[in-house]
């Protein structure tokens, strides 16, 4: 009896907190049928902003996969002074407000920024341009890959590596044949998390990118502008697309996680 009361409470709470808002979004977007939704998908600004989001996210996932794995490897396998501090520094992007992230980058790369003489000399534009938005997204996504890889690298079977090395495998062969297969599922999981976070980034890219329509407008910035211009169907449609994509990613990541659990 007490158990069912608790179960009911949890279902009610999660229903109220998580499911009700999602239902409201879907219901609201399709209020006037499917045609306005389809119409807004076909608009140029819609597609362009979505494409920019995907481009930035793919780039960030690529960089993060390489450097995140590398950093995780260094943290687990190497010994050096300051390693403890480094391990704590990695979590900082989790805690810092995205607005502050954007602002920090603006102080570095913006007009009168610390690096503005260098950027002018090189004739590169970072603030209010795509490179700055990539940097901002890299910052906020930084911990995901590293935190995902550290436990897996810790759990690697070193005897296999040593055996392979003894048998004459060079580092390259050792990595691809022995290490990589063991890291693969964690890599994919880390990549999906990073992808989801990158696609949804808003505060940091708003400040560093400025949300210039047609140039630095990502999918989330498009939603923000549409809301301000009271183009609600467009805003809701993009929200649904981003939301659906996130759900898909969560389901996928969940599957991968379960597969790994059973394989152990």
């Amino acid at each position, binding site marked *: 009896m*007490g158990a069912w009361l*608790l*179960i009911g*409470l*949890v279902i009610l*709470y999660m229903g109220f*907190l*998580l*499911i009700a*808002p*999602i239902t409201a*979004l879907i219901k609201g977007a399709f209020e006037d049928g499917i045609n306005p939704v389809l119409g807004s998908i076909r608009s140029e600004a819609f597609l362009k902003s979505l494409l920019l989001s995907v481009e930035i996210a793919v780039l960030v996932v690529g960089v993060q996969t390489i*450097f995140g794995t*590398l*950093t995780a*490897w*260094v943290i687990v396998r*190497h010994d*050096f002074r300051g390693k403890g501090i480094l391990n*704590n*520094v*990695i*979590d*900082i992007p*989790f*805690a*810092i*407000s*995205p*607005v*502050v992230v954007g*602002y*920090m*980058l*603006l102080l*570095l790369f913006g007009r009168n920024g610390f690096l503005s003489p260098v950027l002018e000399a090189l004739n590169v534009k970072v603030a209010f341009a795509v490179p700055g938005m990539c*940097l901002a997204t890299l*910052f906020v996504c930084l911990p995901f890959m590293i935190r995902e890889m550290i436990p897996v690298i*810790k759990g690697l079977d*070193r*005897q296999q590596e*040593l055996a392979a*090395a*003894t048998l004459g495998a060079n*580092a390259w062969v050792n990595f691809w044949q022995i290490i990589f297969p063991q890291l693969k599922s964690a890599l994919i999981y880390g990549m999906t998390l990073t992808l*989801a976070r990158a696609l*949804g980034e*808003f*505060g940091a890219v*708003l400040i560093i990118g400025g949300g210039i329509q047609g140039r630095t407008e990502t999918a*989330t910035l498009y*939603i923000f502008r549409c*809301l301000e211009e009271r183009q609600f169907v467009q805003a*809701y449609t993009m*929200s649904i697309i*981003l939301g659906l994509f*996130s*759900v898909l990613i*969560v389901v996928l*990541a969940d599957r991968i996680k379960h597969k790994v659990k059973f394989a152990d």
Partner: protein
Amino acid sequence: MDIPLSGTFQKRKLPHLAMRSAGLTYIILMIVVPLIVILQDGFREGVSELIRQISLPIAKHAIVLTLWTSALMTLINAVMGLITTYVIVRFSFPGKRLLNALIDLPLAIPTLVTGVMLVMLYGPQEAIGGFLSQKISLDIIFAPPGIVISLLFISFPFVVRNIQPVLQELDLTQEDAAATLGASPWKIFWKVVFPSLFLPLLSGSLLSFSRAVGEFGAVVIVAGNIPLKTQTAAVYVLGAVESENRLGASAVSILLVAIALLVLFIANKLHQRWGVKQ
């Protein structure tokens, strides 16, 4: 068994060093440099100017609003997170697997989309929002309750995912022993189960607090941007940046960073103390 990294691995000093430098450079360039820059900028006019900027009425109101809504959310999240985890780990019921998967949803859904969803549910023109507003004159959107609900949404996974592994590993024989000795389920929970969950619960709650203090996307949509009423600290920074109020932006940013880092540091320490830090 620990195998010393001798022979083949340590002979290759150069790639070893190159890898380490690359990893370190990446972290320093990406995280440490921006942090130093913002500190330098905020303290440029001295500490007294920084304090003056934070105590300006609009800034102060934004900071206080951020802190109390985050604290209230943390309290609710701790209680409901504890109950949710207990139910999901200990009971079996239809739909449990779905519920377990749903927990991670807020991590994936863009916070801006969260804000949009909540406005559509509780907005004054919507069915539920209109009802609450007219019948019990409770405004959710463009008011503090909306801020708390959106913070609850985005921080929901933190507490649950922090306690879940600990509860799963918990030794059931102690509870069985207590039950055999005649302890009530309530007493068993408080005397046997809760003590082991306390540290993870505290650390998860702190994590959700630090996440909430900096939240922007959901809050800017749900609370709007009304100075001295619903403007939170992060939204204040946006306004300051847009109006080129560099001193104000830097001062409030530094405060936000300081709170976040302090809370994160304590949470990490707690995490290490119960010893499951991965």
